[in-house]
């Protein structure tokens, strides 16, 4: 089954309403649910919600929102992107997503990650100095839990487990990915556990990641694990024209990028940098045709099995966001599928 999956990802960015006011958090969460319902109707394969703990984002508990979406949708897969495993309890993560899996008739999936933000560490009482060991130990435990058999485990980051059985069991196993930025060590770790790799490509040319994909496959080969189809996720936005899409996104993405950049010591983003990312980087912004061409190019040049568009960017107005979801489902994806079908069949899907 070599079909490429297409998804929509969000961190639950708090949008503005049409009257220009910023939405409340409850409204922002319901907005995500509404968007997921539209995506489901239009045949988008998966929606993934990323856990964040910052004022700009409403989703800190992806699984709870996914449970809400589960009751209103029938076929879209329900994912997290990512679940910050380092500052969570693997047993709890498994239980929560197994529960969503039950509520959704087997549509849940989890993307485990270290997260590109670190707010969850102080919030839940973890020390950033333990960043590596927290993830290493917890992903090892999570991989055990995925067998859905009693687990015996000990480590330094949580209480030991002695033949502990964890419930609920799922019907067909819990789909689990590992989200990775640019760290080669993380790619190898993913292969070590035989889990599928989801690459966050948020800047620069997508083709730059080909060596990382090669690394994943070769590591799986050497370690005797399975190399699964690889997924990528990148930011973007669809509107009726290229110009409109860029104009809608720019002021909102600039605010959030500059605010987060300042914490890391980056100067404010310049318009030409944004434009360069649209033209030959990792921003999939434009008309349905433009975005479809760009997605198809990435899917075929990287040979990935899944492409997710991070469709929100700060306070972009809710109505434009909904339109973005509609265009992605109704126009972009059919075009991408056409382009991929027209190109050499054998090379498009992983």
């Amino acid at each position, binding site marked *: 089954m070599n079909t490429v999956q297409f998804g929509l990802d969000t961190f639950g960015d708090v949008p503005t309403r049409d009257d220009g006011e910023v939405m409340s958090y409850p409204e922002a969460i319901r907005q995500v649910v509404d968007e997921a319902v539209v995506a489901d109707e239009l045949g988008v394969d998966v929606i993934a919600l990323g856990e964040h703990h910052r004022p700009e984002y409403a989703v800190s508990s992806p699984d709870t929102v996914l449970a809400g979406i589960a009751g209103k949708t029938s076929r879209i897969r329900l994912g997290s992107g990512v679940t910050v495993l380092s500052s969570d309890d693997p047993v709890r993560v498994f239980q929560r997503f197994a529960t969503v899996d039950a509520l959704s008739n087997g549509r849940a999936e989890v993307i485990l990650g270290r997260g590109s933000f*670190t707010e969850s560490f102080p919030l839940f009482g973890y020390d*950033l*100095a333990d*960043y590596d060991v927290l993830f290493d130990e917890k992903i090892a435990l999570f991989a055990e839990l995925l067998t859905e058999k009693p687990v015996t485990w000990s480590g330094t980051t949580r209480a030991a487990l002695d033949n502990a059985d964890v419930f609920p069991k799922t019907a067909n196993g819990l789909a689990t990915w590992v989200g990775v930025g*640019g*760290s*080669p*060590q993380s790619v*190898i770790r993913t292969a070590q556990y035989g889990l599928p790799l989801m690459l966050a490509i948020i*800047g*620069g*040319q997508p083709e*730059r990641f080909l*060596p*990382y994909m*090669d*690394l994943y496959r*070769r*590591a799986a080969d*050497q370690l005797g694990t399975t190399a699964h189809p690889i997924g990528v996720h990148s930011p973007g936005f669809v509107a009726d024209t290229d110009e409109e899409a860029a104009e809608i996104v720019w002021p909102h993405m600039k605010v959030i990028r500059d605010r987060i950049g300042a914490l*890391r*010591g*980056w*100067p404010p983003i310049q318009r030409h940098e944004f434009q360069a990312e649209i033209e030959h980087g990792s921003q999939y912004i434009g008309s349905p045709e433009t975005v479809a061409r760009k997605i198809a190019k990435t899917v075929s040049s990287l040979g990935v099995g899944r492409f997710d568009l991070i469709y929100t960017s700060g306070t972009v107005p809710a109505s434009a966001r909904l339109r973005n979801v509609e265009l992605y489902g109704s126009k972009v994806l059919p075009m991408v599928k056409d382009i991929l079908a027209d190109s050499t069949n054998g090379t498009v899907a992983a």
Partner: protein
Amino acid sequence: MSGAMAKRLTIGILGSGKVGTVLARLALAAGHRVLISGSGDPAKIRLIVGVLAPGAEAVWSAEAARDADIVVLALPLGKLESVPVAELDGKVVVDAMNYWWEVDGIREDLTDPRVSTSERVQAFLPGSRVVKAFNHMGYHDLDEGPRPVGAVDRKAIAVAGDDAEAVASVSRLVDDLGFAVVSAGSLRDSIRLEPHAEAFGANEDAGTLADMMARFDETERGRAVAAARGADASV
């Protein structure tokens, strides 16, 4: 990349993460020999090196330091204490590191505006000749950036150091790897390349990068640094 026949050097790279593997690839492409290390046993990084920088040799950090003409520090700044000080003695050492609190933890010493982080690196490696370079450009820009001399879209790397000869050799290396060189003064001045300076993150041509550094004193960060340094000129 410089067009002229560059002398083949042995470049040691401590760190085989995002930046280390990119710099290894660029150095190999420029015809240099590359020794690269991680935090421990080279066996752990052999696959990474084999795939991401084929041709580079995975070694222990001490070997990379000992056998190289120029050693690049491409590890987290918070791990500085783990570098092989004795083997780095007398070497030209390129400091490509930045203080990154999410990785290094909250460190008062590394955020003191009176002292650049490269001055700290030099103080920790008193026998080495430290030169700051490559720190301000993101690893994917480094990856995509190399261009031959004379290319209109050639990007620049700022180079700062206190030892003129060491600065000259690192500048030649920067040029070999495919970037224009912008002189950024002393290690003390290299605070203009650190996080919170306008040049941090810069993926620009030489003129633009030079302008950014020239106007540092007029920026908010520049004024804060000047005020802190003026208040205590002894540091």
